[in-house]
């Protein structure tokens, strides 16, 4: 049983309070959407959960292990995997090697057939089996995104955070990503999906977290969130932010929208 519990998480960058007393829990194979206008703190929250950034206060427990003070790689081993907003494949390594990295980081050997077969299976699933020996830099942007998802499958974490998985993806690949998310969820993994594409979020998630300038302003079902006056105000007050799909959030910039 997967259990993530975040309590009273705070993060400041200088005088800029980016996360204010964030608390929430995820139990079981939940699929949670994390939305909010640009600069709301979504990426910072991901970074804090992932261990790339240390919180100023608050605790994060994953399956009973405290992870908020651990370095990134320990968090990954504890069972939390994430993708990045801007795709970060290992460009000068082959597709297969990209997939071996997380497997080997867990102490498995890439010389064992088991790992190799698993990697090929993952590639099959991502419709990229024919590209296995190509360098990652030869792939299209969407394929690199898939590759990143594939690496997560090899890491096999309990909780996956997807940061903008649909941004700039061809509709055909979008299908594959949908399928991926459903399949991974069926395997009993919990997921947090950050996206600006509301259709996808509403279609996939049964629960939404809404961040606005560091505050967690809503934690409810999509229907309720849609009609929540606070959320509506947060979004309508910053209409121009909604169009900024896939843009780079600059979390350190003071929110002036």
């Amino acid at each position: 049983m997967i259990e993530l519990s975040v309590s009273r998480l705070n993060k400041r960058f200088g005088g800029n309070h980016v996360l204010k007393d964030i608390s929430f829990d995820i139990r079981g194979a939940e699929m949670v959407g994390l939305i909010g206008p640009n600069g709301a703190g979504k990426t910072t929250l991901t970074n804090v959960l992932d261990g790339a950034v240390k919180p100023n206060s608050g605790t994060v427990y994953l399956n009973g292990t405290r992870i908020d003070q651990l370095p990134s790689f320990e968090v990954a081993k504890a069972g939390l995997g994430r993708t990045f907003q801007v795709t970060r494949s290992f460009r000068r390594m082959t597709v297969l090697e990209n997939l071996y990295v997380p497997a080997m980081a867990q102490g498995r050997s890439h010389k064992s057939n088991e790992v190799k077969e698993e990697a090929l299976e993952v590639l099959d699933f991502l419709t990229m089996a024919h590209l296995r020996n190509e360098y990652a830099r030869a792939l299209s942007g969407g394929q690199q995104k898939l590759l990143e998802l594939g690496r997560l499958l090899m890491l096999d974490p309990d909780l996956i955070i997807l940061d903008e998985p649909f941004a700039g993806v061809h509709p055909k690949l979008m299908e594959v990503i949908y399928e991926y998310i459903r399949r991974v969820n069926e395997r009993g993994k919990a997921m947090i999906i950050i996206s600006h594409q509301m259709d996808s979020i509403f279609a996939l998630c049964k629960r939404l977290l809404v961040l606005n300038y560091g505050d967690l302003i809503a934690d409810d079902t999509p229907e309720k969130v849609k009609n929540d006056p606070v959320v509506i105000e947060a979004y309508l007050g910053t209409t121009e932010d909604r169009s900024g799909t896939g843009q780079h959030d600059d979390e350190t910039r003071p929110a002036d929208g």
Partner: protein
Amino acid sequence: MQYSSIFWWTILWVVFWGVTGGIGTRRVYLRKDLDTSNATLGGSLIGAAFGPFGLAPLWWKSPEIGRVMITLSSLVVIGIIAVAFANADPENNCVSNGSFVASQITNGLIIGIIYGLMAMGLTLIFSILGIVSFAHGAFYMIGGMLVYYIINVWFPGTHPLIGVLGSCLITFSMGALFERLFLTPMYDGRVERPVEYGILVTFGLSFTLTYLVAALAGFNPVKVKRFFDFPRIRLPDSSDPWLIKTSRGNMELFDTVSISNPRFVAAILSILVLIGLLLFLHRTWTGKGLRAVSQDRDAAAITGINPNRMNMLAFALGCMIAGLSGAVLVQAFSWLPVVGLIPEMRSFVIVVLGGLGSLPGAFVGGTLVGLVEAAGTGCVPNPQKASSYIPAYGMIILTIMLLLRPMGLFGRKFASGAHGKF
């Protein structure tokens, strides 16, 4: 040196508290989630200056560490070291001989100006192209060589300033040509790792140019006569403690400070060039374009500035400035094909000290390094050792600076452009 143990114990004390302050303050400021960009540098300086008595209140109150605090505590550190040194070695020339000290400081400042000029070329290249040019020393060497060849070999009897001008023109065009031929692939993502590519390709250029000049000109040192003679002055006239006395090759101030003509002329020329450069950067369209690109490449491109043109201009200007500092210094030193190496390292030190990409930083860094080198040459007891250690002084500063505050004294966190990220 019978009290030298005092000196070493003091150094040990200062270093110990400096390290403690550097590491501890960062921790403390992180825990209190304050701005840590100055914490390491400030903490270590305060620790070094005041020991536990400085660190305790700092960690207790944790105020914002500003420029004043840093400057003050660094002055105190210098003072402590100076006093310890004076106690340890009272016979030393730079303790007992006041006029020697004044001379060293003046000459340190003068040479520092020229260092600053040269480093400015490097920092200009960095701020626009995002690469560290390892060919900077080669251009410095070529600048000097060209002056020698123009006024002594090719057109004997030409005025030295024409030689300087010619060498500027040639180094400028060499820089522009090199940029067009070798650096263009960096801009459009054709190179996987642009920063490393820039380092390696300029490294190759430096290698090539050095041996090209060696093959053409040989390894014998060449020397250029001083450009100008001082007029004979003695002020006030014929009274004994005079204020200024000049001979053709030397100038003495207040009966104590002696400045050699070539360095003085070089410094004056450097200052003129500096002013010209600043005017160019702040008053002309192209200069403003350059500064705009150095701040935000993409935004500048939107406003109609062609960043590629600016890259070429910046690189060529940077090379020209290196060549120019060589050209004005060729009268002061004897010139060899490998003469550029130490100035190049020094420029690296200066730009890291001042902050890669910061023009005023380069200038301040230059004078600081000039002073440190003057102190080092003057004060280390064994002169033979002192001269061997000169390049190391700067490198020690560089190492310390990189550990304490990698972005330098005046540096921004990163330079502009896609290839400025590192």
